[in-house]
């Protein structure tokens, strides 16, 4: 019996070692993280892939690669390479012509679509974006970066390190796309007659958290609330797409992509 166990363990160890070797043999994408290569991949994507997958990979006839529910991100580098090179005939995706280098660049761009914005090239002007953020666009009235700015909106100190460029862009162009929970404006009348105005951060039938314009938190039990009026929309303005030019939105995305929290 003991011999059997020993052989079983030895066999399992061999299989595991083989598995590790197989993983090591798989090709790694040399272009991942290389901003120039990703930019070249973007150019190739726009020329050959955006027709189906949409500009910025946001979907069309083909799947959304930027923030949709597709499974490509679980593929290994090599499998992503093969998928692009050989296509998916059953799904109507044709093979992609070109050198291996071009395919690796395309694959790196596809990975970067979901990677933190700070790790992918941005076309916009971050200097203009900074001016807009702290000026005309008024982002700083609600959002903060490293301690400066408003307190009502999410802190953007690590926007570029924690969000992809697509997610940042969508939040600017279509803030309601992720729902308004946590950012609804509310007017509350308490049973003692006082009233409170602010943003509903979090609520259920028993308690709620309201943040007022000064940023102060009001942690209330619903037994103290007489009535409240809750807006359906997020307090984030929904008109940036019409207020700002495409280049200005690109600039804001580029500026936010640079925000990665840690400085040292």
């Amino acid at each position, binding site marked *: 019996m003991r011999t059997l166990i020993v052989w079983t363990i030895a066999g399992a160890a061999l299989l595991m070692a083989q598995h590790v070797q197989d993983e090591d043999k798989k090709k790694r994408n040399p272009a991942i993280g290389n901003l120039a290569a990703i930019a070249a991949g973007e150019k190739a994507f726009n020329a050959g892939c955006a027709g189906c997958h949409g500009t910025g990979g946001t979907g069309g006839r083909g799947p959304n690669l930027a923030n949709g529910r597709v499974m490509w991100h679980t593929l290994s580098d090599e499998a992503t390479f093969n998928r692009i090179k050989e296509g998916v005939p059953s799904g109507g995706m044709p093979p992609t012509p070109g050198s291996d280098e071009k395919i690796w660049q395309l694959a790196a761009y596809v990975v970067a679509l979901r990677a933190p914005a700070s790790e992918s090239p941005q076309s916009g002007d971050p200097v203009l974006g900074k001016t807009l953020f702290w000026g005309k666009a008024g982002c700083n009235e609600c959002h903060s970066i490293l301690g400066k700015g408003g307190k009502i909106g999410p802190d953007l100190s690590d926007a570029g390190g924690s969000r992809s460029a697509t997610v940042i862009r969508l939040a600017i162009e279509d803030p309601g796309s992720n729902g308004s929970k946590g950012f609804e404006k509310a007017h509350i009348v308490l049973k003692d007659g006082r009233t409170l105005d602010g943003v509903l951060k979090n609520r259920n039938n028993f308690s709620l958290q309201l*943040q007022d314009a000064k940023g102060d938190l009001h942690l209330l039990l619903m037994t103290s609330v007489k009535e409240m009026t809750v807006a359906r929309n997020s307090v984030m303005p929904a008109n940036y797409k019409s207020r700002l030019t495409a280049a200005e939105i690109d600039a804001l995305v580029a500026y936010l992509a640079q925000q990665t929290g840690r400085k040292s």
Partner: protein
Amino acid sequence: MIKIVTITLLLAAAALAQVRPEDILKSPNADWLTYAGDYRGTRHSPLNQITAANAPSLVPKWVYHVPKATKLEATPLVHKGVMFVTAPNEVRALDARTGRLIWEWHDGRAKRSDVNRGAGLLGENVYVATSDCFLTALNQKTGALLWQRQYADSNKGVFCSSAPFAVKDRVLVGTAGGDTGMRGFVAAMNANTGNEMWRFYTVPAKGEKGSETWGEYVEWGGAATWLSGTYDPDLNTLYWTTGNPWPDFYDGDRKGDNLYSCSVIALDVDTGKLKWYFQFTPGDTHDWDGQSWPVLLDREVNGKARKILVHPNRNGFYYVIDRVTGEFLHATKLNDLVDWATGIDARGRPIKVRGKDPSPAGTKACPGVRGGANWMAPTFSPQTGLFYVITFEQCDIYTSSAKKPEPMAGFSGGGAGVKPRDAGTFYLRALDPATGKRIWQYPMPGPGIAWSGTVSTAGGVVFVGDDDGHLIALEAKTGKHLWHFQMGEHLFASPMTYAVDGKQFVAIASATAVFSFGLFEPAQSVPLVNTNE
């Protein structure tokens, strides 16, 4: 006039929202503003709603499960009804009355993930150290990142786990990693900017005074500072304990006292200058870090009123030291199982027993490697005059290896706890703090893996986590059991207490969740509120 009054009221409201140094001086009360509750490390709360008479009516009020947590070690802080809880590279703010999440912050770029023991509060900020030693300041209300400053290099064997300690206009930070080679230090960082104000290395550099007590590997000597310190505002002095010398179990390359390992150091909080030090275990070879924080008390010792510092040490002895001068006053055996030294001499040095050092074949010595006491929080109740400390009765077999030390490679010069290992027994002991005399003890039979400590209250109750996942309440005067609650998992953190809207709570982190308890109240029906949506 109205304008002036309005401005004054607004300023007053703003001040109330801030944690001022004078607020921390008054902590704990309804709030619990610093890791040990108060600067002196006594962890005694004046809250008295929960008493020895009504403690049997305690019930859980809420539970917050910290996502992906496996071993929470933090003591929560509470300020104005908001609780701050840390996990490795994470901070969460909870509604202390309901347990609901307000905000959370996570550092996705931290290069390590080790245990974390808590946060610090000052002004509008909450401070936490990431595992890779970035002191991080967040806004208390929103969790927004204000700044991060790296104060130690995790590529040089250091990691950071202790709660930042806010004193005056600065935040004191410590270091961990002493079991695999590093150089310990305490540093003061500006609370507003994070800029370093001073640094005191607990291992001198080659050629500096004290380096003659080391050997070749002095730059990797350890003496980590992995638990927060204590502070006497009247003496403007910071007290900090230090860990073991490295390699832990083999001293062939570091013959000598190995200053300032296994010590308590007294530092000028303004300059970081060493005022005095006292070494508990010179040239330690049993991994007996001196880590439990020094508790600062004013007591009569041998008929004379003294400002003292008391310390239940991992080496099995209980020490009383004059905290003004560093004069050693006396030490007594904390544990029954102490065989490496027969006592402590008049100078404070151990009277060692031959043949108790680790050896290649293994040497049995007591206490075991986890110590007669460890970092589990002690408490002192001025109401009972007793000092409460978790102690551990156990021995280990210690081995040593003369292999050439390699820093940062998991090498500690040997080991301890060769199997079969005695599981040992934990006891909560109530001592006379001035003499170390044992007044009562409460045994806690269990599997021998307890890491929870204590908090005492003016309600005459001591809360403590036991050795089998219970939070228990004992009568502070006698040790009589009053109440217990099974948390469902082992405990690695110490309890604390706070109040919101006049109601007292007792909270503790289990391995994966934060629990808060209060006195039973019948549930009230909560009518639905019209939201006019």
